[in-house]
């Protein structure tokens, strides 16, 4: 069971940060959905819900998404989904239900870089940055390899690009975790392919648009190996990986599967 000794609803990011670094076990709680499943004691649970991080701001060049924005906000944001043909909405659509998606935050998911994450797989394919309070702005594709530092993820920035995008996943029941997920985007004649829940966290590779499927799959095999866990075997995942990547590539290139 999760035990919280002190709850701090920070009024500012500085207050949240100072509280965070006081003790190595202090924790930003995000939507608290995954944390709640853990059996541990949090000396100080820091809530960012008063830090004005719960809106999606749009300007000419980008969507600036506050860390406390929920999955449901992402799913229902029209302009954002128009840009990617609904790919972001599709990636979160089957995550438990509306109630859950009204609580799960983008900041919690992206900071945690969960292996099972669907939204991480989707966003990695886009031209996307993460903003942290101390570290500043960093590309998401670099951020996923960073260590878990004591910092506060404040925003996710999605740069506006002309693109085609696609997301596919397989679940054992409709609102369960993905056994495997795959996403892709075609931006400036460059294919970005991403596979997650392998069960390792998502990785992304960039490939020239004219590469054929066999070449793409070869590169996917090298960069994104699969493993077994309680949800599926390595072999099953490897099979799904090829099928889902093929589907994604066909969607991007406008070919029928």
């Amino acid at each position, binding site marked *: 069971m999760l035990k919280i000794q002190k*709850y701090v*609803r920070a009024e500012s990011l500085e207050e949240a940060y100072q509280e965070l670094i006081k003790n190595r076990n202090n924790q930003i709680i995000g939507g608290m*959905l995954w944390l709640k499943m853990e059996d541990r004691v949090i000396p100080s649970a820091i*809530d960012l819900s008063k830090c004005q991080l719960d809106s999606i701001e749009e300007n000419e060049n980008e969507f600036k998404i506050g860390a406390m924005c929920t999955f449901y906000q992402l799913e229902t944001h029209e302009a954002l989904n128009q840009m990617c043909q609904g790919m972001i909405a599709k990636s979160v659509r089957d995550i438990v*239900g*509306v109630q859950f998606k009204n609580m799960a935050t983008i900041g919690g998911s992206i900071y945690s870089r969960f292996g099972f994450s669907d939204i991480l797989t989707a966003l990695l394919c886009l031209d996307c940055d993460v903003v942290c309070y101390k570290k500043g702005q960093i590309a998401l594709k670099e951020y996923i390899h960073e260590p878990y530092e004591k910092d506060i993820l404040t925003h996710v920035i999605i740069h506006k690009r002309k693109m085609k995008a696609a997301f596919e996943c397989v679940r054992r029941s409709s*609102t369960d975790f993905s056994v495997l997920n795959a996403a892709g985007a075609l931006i400036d004649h460059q294919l970005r392919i991403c596979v997650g829940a392998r069960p390792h966290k998502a990785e992304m590779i960039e490939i020239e648009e004219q590469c054929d499927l066999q070449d793409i799959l070869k590169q996917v095999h090298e960069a994104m190996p699969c493993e077994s866990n309680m949800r599926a075997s390595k072999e099953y995942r490897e099979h799904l990986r090829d099928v889902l990547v093929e589907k994604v590539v066909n969607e991007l290139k406008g070919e029928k599967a």
Partner: protein
Amino acid sequence: MKISLTVNGRKIQEDIQESMLLIDFLRSHGYTSVKRGCETSNCGLCTVLMDDHPILSCSMLAARADGHSIVTLEGAGKEAEAFAEFMAKEGAEQCGFCSPGLIMNVIAMKKELKNPTKEEIKQYLSGNLCRCSGYMSQMRAIEKYLQEESV
């Protein structure tokens, strides 16, 4: 810590344990329609509305609800009653344990979606599990309820 929130229109101020979950806070105040079905944030039985949005009260700290407005089935009044009648007519109630959460989410859906398709209804309610019925009777009740209400 002290929190102050509105539950079904009634202002409550209380000193609570920091770890206390909203579901336990609500039940301790007699709102026992709010049920705990799974402990893994999956079943939707504990659904309540916070500032009109459906949330899982089993997965939210009562502390976070400070300053907000909560509505449970007990506060849903006529709307809940009207829908419950459709449920009863379709024989949708079996054990009834999941109904409070479902009803709250149906009320939220009705506010949010205009003339939803069957697929959209299923999507919106996918986080409400029922282990008795197979969902067919609920779907009939929901469709009839939405039709009737939109006339």
